[in-house]
């Protein structure tokens, strides 16, 4: 993990430009937030393939579906709360049911949105999106992984929800790191505990792992960049190999990463799981780092639950 930090929304914007150069069928839609979602980078490079749909997320999603029926590959972006929340039925009926090739890239997920407060802090999107048939759900943790994901999903002819963050977090991976949809990344081989993390909490889990190592406690971190289809194999393996299981996410503990892992554990190898996340309450205003402490999803909270 490097010192250098970057928000995954920034990585997304940069990756879109590269993708746009390689593939002429890529079109990008935004709902008046292109400066924040970073799709403005694509808009500057390819104005003829960028569509600002105004403050009309529902229209944006169904328009993207129409574009997809004509072989375009639309990337539709807005804040997670307006994508997965406001336009849920459009995603369900116009995109997922007909299996439209639309990539919903939702930035500003979770309480780490910060100062805007609860109305803008989407902590239910993983739950909403993973219940939709035909939907693949991704939640990337750093610059390298996000750039990989943005290109990789363009090759899948089906709907994808990609969850991105506002908060700048450390770059975790080397450029050479290989990823695969549906295959989590295991960091370390410790057997004292497994910490399953996703998105902005992965770097927290890695910090916790390093702190614990100094105390002689060896854990592993599993970066669950794919929430659906969930990597059952690694969950079962870690349940069998490690003494303790913890999940940590910037999302409601209901319906998100912790729930998805619990579903696997319940059916495959019943094991206790400690779920860290937003405990069925709305977010609040504050600085992102303060909110992570407030909602107990930091490295310290992970450490406290292991020692």
């Amino acid at each position: 993990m490097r010192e250098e930090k970057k928000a995954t929304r920034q990585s997304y914007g940069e990756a879109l430009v590269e993708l746009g150069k390689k593939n002429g069928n890529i079109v990008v839609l935004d709902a008046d937030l292109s400066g924040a979602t970073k799709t403005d980078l694509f808009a500057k490079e390819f104005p003829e393939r960028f569509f600002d749909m105004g403050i009309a997320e529902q229209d944006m999603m169904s328009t993207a579906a129409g574009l997809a029926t004509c072989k375009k590959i639309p990337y539709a972006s807005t804040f997670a709360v307006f994508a997965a929340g406001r336009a849920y039925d459009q995603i369900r009926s116009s995109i997922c049911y007909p299996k439209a090739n639309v990539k919903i890239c939702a930035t500003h997920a979770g309480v780490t949105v910060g100062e805007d407060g609860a109305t803008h802090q989407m902590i239910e999107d993983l739950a909403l999106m993973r219940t939709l048939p035909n939907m693949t759900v991704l939640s990337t943790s750093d610059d390298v992984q996000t750039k990989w994901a943005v290109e990789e999903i363009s090759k899948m002819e089906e709907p994808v929800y990609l969850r991105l963050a506002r908060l700048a977090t450390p770059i975790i991976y080397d450029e050479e790191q290989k990823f695969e949809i549906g295959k989590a990344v295991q960091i370390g081989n410790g057997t004292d505990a497994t910490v399953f993390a996703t998105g902005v909490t992965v770097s927290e889990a890695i910090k916790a792992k390093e702190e614990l190592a100094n105390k002689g406690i060896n854990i592993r971190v599993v970066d669950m960049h794919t929430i659906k289809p969930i990597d059952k194999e690694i969950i079962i393996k870690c349940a069998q190999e490690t003494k303790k299981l913890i999940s940590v996410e910037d999302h409601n503990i209901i319906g998100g990463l912790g729930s998805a892992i619990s579903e696997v554990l319940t059916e495959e190898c019943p094991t206790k799981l400690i779920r860290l996340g937003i405990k069925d309450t709305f977010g609040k205003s504050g600085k992102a780092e303060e909110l992570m402490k407030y909602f107990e999803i930091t490295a310290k909270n992970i450490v406290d639950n292991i020692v």
Partner: protein
Amino acid sequence: MSVSILRIICQKFVIIFYKGVVILKITNINELQEKAKEVRRGIIEEIYSANSGHPGGSLSIADILTVLYFNEMNVDEKNPNWEDRDRLVLSKGHASPALYSTLANRGYFTVEDLKTFRGINSKLQGHPDMKHIPGVDMTTGSLGQGLSAANGMAIAGKIDNKNYRVYCILGDGEIEEGQVWEAAMTSGKYKLDNLCVIVDNNNLQIDGEISDVMNPYPIDEKFKASGFKIICIDGHNIEKIISAFEVAKNVKEQPVCIIAKTIKGKGISFMENQVGWHGKAPNEEQYNQAIKELGGAK
């Protein structure tokens, strides 16, 4: 003899060659009226067979769909996904019986298939399903989303410099959905002159007259404000429908909205203008009566 037969054929049809595809179009008004009757018979067959479905709003768009698929649109039933085809989005998806009957009569699948409508083993889902039904260009059912999808298709046509046109049928009750007006702004913003919206103005929705439930009037002024050219017609007059599409095709730099005054349940005396026939299937006696009014079984 053979010459006169050829002449008769020429009076009734026109054969066009478009982008390498041979398309037969019916031009004779009486023939189109007969086709519309067949479409209506199919609607009744479907809903009676399923004992479920929406006859009122299906019958009100039967003439419009007949003109679209037998006279206006460049489509190829042998190649439903032909990329240069004109496209139709039936945004008021509950009128699926009308679309399916039109597609069956056009040859996308058999008229016999219509009797499987809404059945467990049927491809003919309750609402239009583009993944399983040949000829269905967009999945619809949750009201208010179709115009957005049609915009997407029209925008794609502009990007690719294609000549195809996109048609979108909205219900007059459906336009109470806010998304329709988001979409209307999009049509106007991108000057989608390859898009033609048709509002099926039958004046009724489930809970009553549209002006009582949630008044969407003035429909013309609202679309006009979003940049549409407005054409108002009698939605059951085949000649007027044909000429409206002709006018629409020649409008440049703006989308067109045809407001078609229609009668819910049109063609079946006891269903006409009766809100109770929005989503109800006929019993055996009503079915027989309906088929009789449509000229009897074929």
